[in-house]
């Protein structure tokens, strides 16, 4: 790879006997390298009992090299999770579910250590996340990316360093990464399909969208437009952007209700749905309007209480946990039955999209029962589900 040799050290530990064996098997030329690395660690670690530290470092460093030699039977994986936006509980739940999924691998005899970087960062800041993971020598990186295209070069570097890269929740263009998550276009289409059926295929409809130019938003918009195009009697009279903000969604709905008194249907995404529904309820039009909903417990409770005519596509926070289960199987060297070649970037593996409507609302209520109001209805690929996708 033409870069310096210190980069490819995975930070893992092994049994001492393994270490000695490994050390002996290493060609003398590389032993010098190890000695240098030990010396380097020694230089950079200040304080403490130096002799003890030297011994420990020598051990762990040789172990690191040993693992490179014996990586076939190593079942210890270190996986880095990067999240570049901390604006919602959904993201917190996403990380917590992924951590739980990692812990669940213990029963299978696989130690999955997760390290997490999660903060509000700009794109360069999240590129720094990836570089930190490369420096640390993780086995895989799972990222909820802030940009679809900006990570191509840094993912290429990660791949050169032998790291598996998986993006989730938002697709990336890099050929060096795999996307494991839902198809945002199908997500948008599912809500539109439900709405069209709820309206018997006719009536005026408005759409409240997220952030203009955001890839997930554009894909969802493309999804509902395609569906409504099949229903000649459904007319989309206006489309507005409310930036995925509940308050802005409420405001936008108020304006729309004032402008178009004859609206029959509303297509609205995520948390903005709760805001839009609030305006619909305040206007006393609960019974006259069908609108898409969302998946947080607060909203599901309202849905049941006020008997809303609603249906919700689910983008489950469990996507990262699903991606983690897929990652571990890939690290074990298993191969997918169907290679991940879907989507506009030909690197996607799409997960099923659950849908909540009146037929299965009770089930959703049961799942979120006793959880806090911000908890989202979720689903994920279990280890067994994921294994079924591999040869």
């Amino acid at each position, binding site marked *: 790879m033409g870069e310096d040799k210190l980069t490819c050290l995975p930070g893992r530990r092994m049994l001492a006997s393994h270490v000695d064996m490994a050390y002996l098997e290493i060609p003398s030329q590389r032993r010098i390298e190890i000695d240098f690395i030990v010396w380097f660690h020694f230089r*950079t670690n200040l304080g403490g009992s130096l002799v003890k530290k030297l011994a420990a470092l020598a051990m762990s460093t040789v172990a690191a090299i040993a693992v490179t030699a014996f990586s076939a039977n190593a079942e210890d994986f270190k996986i880095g999770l990067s999240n570049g936006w901390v604006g919602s509980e959904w993201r917190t739940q996403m990380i917590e579910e992924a951590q739980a999924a990692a812990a669940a691998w213990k029963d299978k005899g696989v130690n999955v250590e997760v390290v997490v970087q999660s903060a509000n960062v700009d794109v360069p800041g999240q590129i*720094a996340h990836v570089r930190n993971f490369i*420096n640390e020598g993780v086995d895989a990186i799972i990222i909820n990316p802030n940009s679809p295209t*900006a990570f191509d070069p840094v993912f290429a570097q990660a791949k050169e360093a032998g790291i598996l890269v998986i993006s989730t929740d938002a697709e990336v263009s890099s050929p060096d990464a795999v996307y494991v998550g839902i198809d945002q276009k199908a997500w948008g289409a599912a809500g539109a399909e439900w709405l069209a059926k709820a309206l018997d295929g006719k009536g005026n409809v408005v759409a409240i969208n997220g952030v203009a130019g955001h890839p997930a938003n554009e894909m969802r918009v493309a999804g509902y437009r395609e569906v409504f195009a099949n229903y000649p009697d459904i007319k989309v009279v206006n489309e507005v952007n409310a930036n995925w903000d509940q308050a802005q969604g409420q405001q936008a709905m108020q304006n729309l209700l004032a402008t178009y008194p004859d609206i029959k249907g509303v297509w609205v995404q995520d948390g903005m749905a709760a805001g839009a529904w609030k305006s619909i309820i305040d206007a006393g039009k609960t019974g006259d309007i069908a609108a898409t909903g969302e998946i947080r417990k607060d909203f599901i409770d309202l849905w049941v209480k006020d008997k809303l005519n609603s249906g919700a596509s689910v983008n489950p926070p469990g996507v990262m946990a699903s991606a983690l289960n897929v990652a571990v199987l890939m690290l074990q060297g298993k191969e997918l039955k169907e290679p991940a070649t879907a989507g506009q970037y030909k690197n996607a593996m799409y997960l099923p999209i659950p849908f909540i409507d009146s037929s299965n609302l009770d089930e959703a209520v049961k799942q979120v029962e006793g959880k806090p109001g911000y908890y989202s209805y979720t689903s994920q690929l279990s280890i067994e589900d994921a294994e079924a996708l591999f040869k």
Partner: protein
Amino acid sequence: MMARILARYPFLPALVIALVLLALNGLYQPRSVSLIGLTGLTKTYLALMLLAIAQTYVVYAGDIDLSVGAIVSLVNVVLVVLMERWGGGGVSIFAAMAAGLLVGLACGLINGLVVAALRLQAIVATFATSIFFTGVALWVLPVAGLPAPTAFWRTYGGRFFEVPFVFYAVLLLALVLYLMARLRLTTQLLAVGDDAQSAFQSGLPVTAIRIKGYALCGLFAALAAFCITGDTASGDPLVGGKMTLFSVAAVVLGGAALSGGFGTVVGSVFGALIIGLINSLVYFVGTPSEWQNLVQGLAILIALMAGILVGRRTRR
């Protein structure tokens, strides 16, 4: 003695803080201070350094520019779209870069005219122009996705004679900053920021100077966009949005006064570095994910206080 050194080199506190943070990074993750680690750090944060420099020139004059992030996005998409349109060859890359610089300059001039000539409040006016520039960027490239020519980002990420390209860029930048510090414009900006009234009374063309400050800011924001494009190899109409406030933070961390009249561009460069090093350090020390934002904010606050305390002591 100490006071005199600090008055001469006001960026020293920022330099010391950056060095301490670098040492801490090395302590917790030795590989982060290896050649590759440092190259990565420079590649990632060169854009923020340039943006902090851009911001410094307007802050010198007591102004602020909340549109720098939007300018970065706009130049980024213009650059990528033009390189694509013109074929992606060597000549087209340089032509697109020239066009990018012009776009940055034009944005800066618009800001300058709105703030200095029309006398709108800088903070609100540049917030408004930031929305406008983002709108233009979305018009140029509606969704993120167009790749930059390979030659462009391979150069940015590559190496010449075994030395990474970004280090040459840093050297060149240092030279430019050294020359710029000797320009009359720098002194004039500082004079305006220190006391616009007396600067005017002593015969300085205050409005023209402030406009020049914004123009300079636009140019450096365009350079930052080059780095972003080099590091991300693609166009994204929203890429720079979040960088704006980080650039302001970097300027203040670097020892400049937001009220104007005091500061150094070198300090702002170290300020940007401090932000980057804090981000990495928070992770390397093993902060749990739910605390990372909080710790990062606290660390920036502490760095800010440390710098200000030292500065205040000596200026008294």
